[in-house]
């Protein structure tokens, strides 16, 4: 690959500054001339869209925090005050509420993209691990955010999820009281959840930069899954991707605006507009939609510790993806059997999501067990077997070859 030669800055102030802190050269290198594979498609736009969602969450969150009160007696009313009295408070809150859903939609698609096109394979393992870590932090952030309005679903969701820690033998009970800062979910819990809910997104933002750092070291993959072989295979980031990304972000914002303005409670639970009541468990506790597949897996076995371990494993397994799918062909497009397995896996994840919202009774319990077995079988049985027995289709010689030979 060609090595980068920094430009000479003509403007003398720019040049003076850049000699002392090469920020302008850095942006030039990474946002203007940065080489990207010429064949990447719209599935590669979900990363930048996730970054936009993070910015939306940070901005709306900081403004909400100017009015929100983390006190069990006041929290619910302070959110209602944001909705009714604070100027544009309804907009800030609906952006933040629906922004969480948007963030998860985008990140999940971003990750399925990676699973299909083999983005976790060498040399992108570290990039992938940072991504999985960001998902973990997002899950915790969204969970704690949902507790803040102190509705009845906030309270009971917090109770059920923090109680997962009690499954750990021996230290479970002291651990959960340490998390609560009390003998039950109470004022200290709400207070610290607000502190962490403010802190975690900042850590996520920092990790997003590390994610970009790793990306720019190894460069983007592409739908063919073959390496960049020379300048003929790439185009500069600007103007090609700046324009394409802006176009895509606009479409995402239109989609997002539909929910914010026309169906702002589409993803919400009515029980969370009832103030928290420590004496009344809602008849049917359901988490937000983006947790449903994991919530289903939690209920797959008739053992408390077993359920918790399975649920953790369902996310942790993503870390070892580079060692489970060892096929040297990155892109699913050249793997006829893998493609089938992949789409069955996607359907299974959606099915688990649906099951997670059902009551804990038959036939759902049995269906959850079947879907959970399929989920883990994909990782531990299907992928390793495919690597052994599948015969991939022939790969093109280079990224530019199919284009130039067709012309």
């Amino acid at each position: 690959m060609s090595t980068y030669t920094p430009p000479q800055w003509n403007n003398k102030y720019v040049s003076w500054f850049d000699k002392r802190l090469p920020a302008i050269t850095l942006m030039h290198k990474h946002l203007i001339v940065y080489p990207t594979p010429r064949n990447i498609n719209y599935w590669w736009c979900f990363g930048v869209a996730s970054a936009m969602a993070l910015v939306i969450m940070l901005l709306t969150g900081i403004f909400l925090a100017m009015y929100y009160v983390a006190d069990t007696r006041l929290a619910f009313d302070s959110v209602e005050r944001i909705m009714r009295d604070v100027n544009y408070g309804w907009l800030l809150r609906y952006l933040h509420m629906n922004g969480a859903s948007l963030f998860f939609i985008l990140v999940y698609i971003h990750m399925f993209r990676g699973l299909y096109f083999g983005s976790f394979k060498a040399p992108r393992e570290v990039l992938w691990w940072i991504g999985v870590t960001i998902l973990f932090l997002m899950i915790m952030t969204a969970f704690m955010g949902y507790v803040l309005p102190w509705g009845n679903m906030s309270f009971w969701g917090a109770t059920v999820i923090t109680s997962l820690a009690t499954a750990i033998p021996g230290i479970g009970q002291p651990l959960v009281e340490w998390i609560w800062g009390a003998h039950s979910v109470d004022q200290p819990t709400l207070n610290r959840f607000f502190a962490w809910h403010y802190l975690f997104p900042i850590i996520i933002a920092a990790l997003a930069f590390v994610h970009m750092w790793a990306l720019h070291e190894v460069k983007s993959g592409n739908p063919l899954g073959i390496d960049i072989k020379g300048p003929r295979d790439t185009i500069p980031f600007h103007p090609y991707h700046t324009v394409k990304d802006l176009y895509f972000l606009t479409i995402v914002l239109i989609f997002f605006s539909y929910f914010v303005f026309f169906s702002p409670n589409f993803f919400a639970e009515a029980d969370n507009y009832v103030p928290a009541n420590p004496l009344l468990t809602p008849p049917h506790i359901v988490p937000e939609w983006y947790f449903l597949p994991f919530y289903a897996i939690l209920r797959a076995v008739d053992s408390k510790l077993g359920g918790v371990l399975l649920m953790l494993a369902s996310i942790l397994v993503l870390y070892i993806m580079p060692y489970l799918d060892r096929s040297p062909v990155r892109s699913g497009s050249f793997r006829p059997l893998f493609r089938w397995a992949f789409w069955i896996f996607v359907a299974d994840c959606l099915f688990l999501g649906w099951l997670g919202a059902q009551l804990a009774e038959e036939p759902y319990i049995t269906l959850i067990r079947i879907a959970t077995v399929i989920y883990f079988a994909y990782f531990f049985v299907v992928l390793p077997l495919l690597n052994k027995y599948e015969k991939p289709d022939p790969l093109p010689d280079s990224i530019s070859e199919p284009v130039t030979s067709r012309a």
Partner: protein
Amino acid sequence: MADADDTIEILGLTYPRRDFLIYGSVGLGAAGVALVAWPFIDSMNPAADQRALATKKVDISAIEEGQAITVMWQGKPVFIRHRTASDIEEAENTPLSQLKDPQTDAERVKPGHEQWLIVVGICTHLGCIPLGQKPGDPKGDFNGWFCPCHGSHYDTSARARKGPAPRNLAVPPYEFLDDQTIQIG
């Protein structure tokens, strides 16, 4: 500066002086970090006012046989049920082999007060409040309590019988001050 080839003798063995200094400083540093970390970690535990084992007196004279009330103690709901003769019989006659968390009924009530069952009303699965306190509530397959969250059933001694709950509902510390009053805590 000390010579890198210097050695030091500890318990009859010789080590390079530099290694000794490096491991020593790192070890001491790690111990220091752990010492400083503890106040931060411990600050998150329940504070002294939360911890103060508040006691609570409850007058139970108005609870009719077959009825139950819920009181709050330490931020937790406590179930007080006035059991019927058949409730008690059912609880006492259940063989221990049928229990997940084997405990006799006698271990869960006070002698002479078998009609009173007093337990913390928090499901041992993931902390929901089981139903069964109010007359119209479902009481589960064992005539005690039913937790709607993930379907745990408790019997008339509040012992876990079916579903994911691993343990019986906890019995809080309490005593009878007289036949009408109990003190929890």
